[in-house]
C-alpha cells in the first residue's frame, strides 16, 4: 500500500461535522478523476461518516487508518466528475 501516490493532502483536524464533510467534499472537487486525496482528521464520527459519504458520491475509499489514539487518515480516489 506504500506506493499509492497522494495528489492532495487535506488537514481537517479541529473540524466537526458537517464541516469535516464540507471540506472533504471541496477537497475532492479540487482534484481530477483518478487522483487521490489524503485527509487527516480527529473528529471520531467523521472517520466513519466521510468514507460512507464518499462512497455515496461514487468515489473509492482506499484506506481508513487510525494513526494514533486521536487521529485518522482517510484516502479517497476520485472516480466521478462532480
Amino acid at each position, binding site marked *: 500500500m506504500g506506493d499509492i501516490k497522494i495528489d492532495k493532502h487535506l488537514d481537517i483536524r479541529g473540524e466537526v461535522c458537517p*464541516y469535516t464533510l464540507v471540506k472533504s467534499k471541496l477537497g475532492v472537487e479540487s482534484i481530477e478523476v483518478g487522483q487521490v486525496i489524503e485527509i487527516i482528521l480527529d473528529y471520531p464520527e467523521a472517520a466513519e461518516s466521510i468514507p460512507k459519504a464518499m462512497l455515496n458520491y461514487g468515489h473509492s475509499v482506499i484506506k481508513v487508518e487510525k494513526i494514533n489514539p486521536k487521529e485518522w487518515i482517510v484516502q479517497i480516489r476520485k472516480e466521478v466528475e462532480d
Partner: protein
Amino acid sequence: MEFTEEQLKRYSRHIILPEVGGKGQKKISGAKVLIVGAGGLGCPAGYYLAAAGVGTLAIVDNDTVELSNLQRQIAHSVKTLNVNKAESAKQTFEALNPDVNVIAVKERINSRNILNLIRDYDIIVDGTDNFPTRYLINDACVMLRKPLVSGAILRFEGQVTAILPGEGPCYRCLFEEPPPPGLVPSCQEAGVLGVLPGVIGALQATEVLKLILGKGLPLKGSLLIYDALGVNFRKVKIPRNDNCPVCGKNPRIKELSDLPEEYCSI
C-alpha cells in the same frame, strides 16, 4: 472565488449535496436574477434566492407596503409600512444574507423600460398580479431569450411554469391574448390564502436554482397547478404553438406595447 469560513458554514447544506457542491454554489453566487414584483410571490421567491446566495438579486416594484399586504408578503413588516416594496424587500434580504447584492428598482415595469431592466440578468421571475404585465414580461423574455419562471395565484390555487425561449412554449402559446378586463378576478376581489403564494413562490425559487445549477428537469412545456383545498399537484402539458404571435415561426408581435389601462385595474 474561494469560500470564506462563514460561507462554508452558511452554504454547508448545499455544498454536501452532490448536485450542488462547491461548483454549484459558485454558480449560484455568480448568478443574476431579476424578480418583477415584491408581492406575495416575489417575497418568498426572493427570500429563498437570497438565502441560497444568488449573487445579484434585483427586485422591481413601485408600490408601497400596506397593512393588507402583510398577510402574505413576508419580506415586509410593520416597520416598513409605506416604504417602497422593492426597498423593503431589499432590507429584509440583505439582513438575511449580506453576500447578496440586492438591487431595488423602484419603477413600474412597462414596454419602454423592460428590455433595459432585464437585459443584464440571467433569469427573470414573474411575480406580478396582472395580465398586462405578465404578457409584457413574456414577450420581452422571448425577444431577449431570457429564461422566465412565472407564477400565479388566486384563492386556493396557484400555478408555475418555466418559459425557456427557443426550447419550449411561452405564455402566448397557451393563451394568445390576455383575458378581457374583468373576466378573471384579482386577489383584491376574490381573496387568496396567505400561505399559497409562499408555496408557489418557493416553487419558483426552486426552478430558478435548478436552472442556475443545470440540474434536474426544468418545468418547461408544462404548467404545474397546485390546488390547496384538494391537496393536489397536477402537471398539464403545454404544446408549443408554431403560430404563436410572439415565439412562433412568423411572429406578428415584434415590438413591445402596453395594454390599455383598464387591464391594470384588476
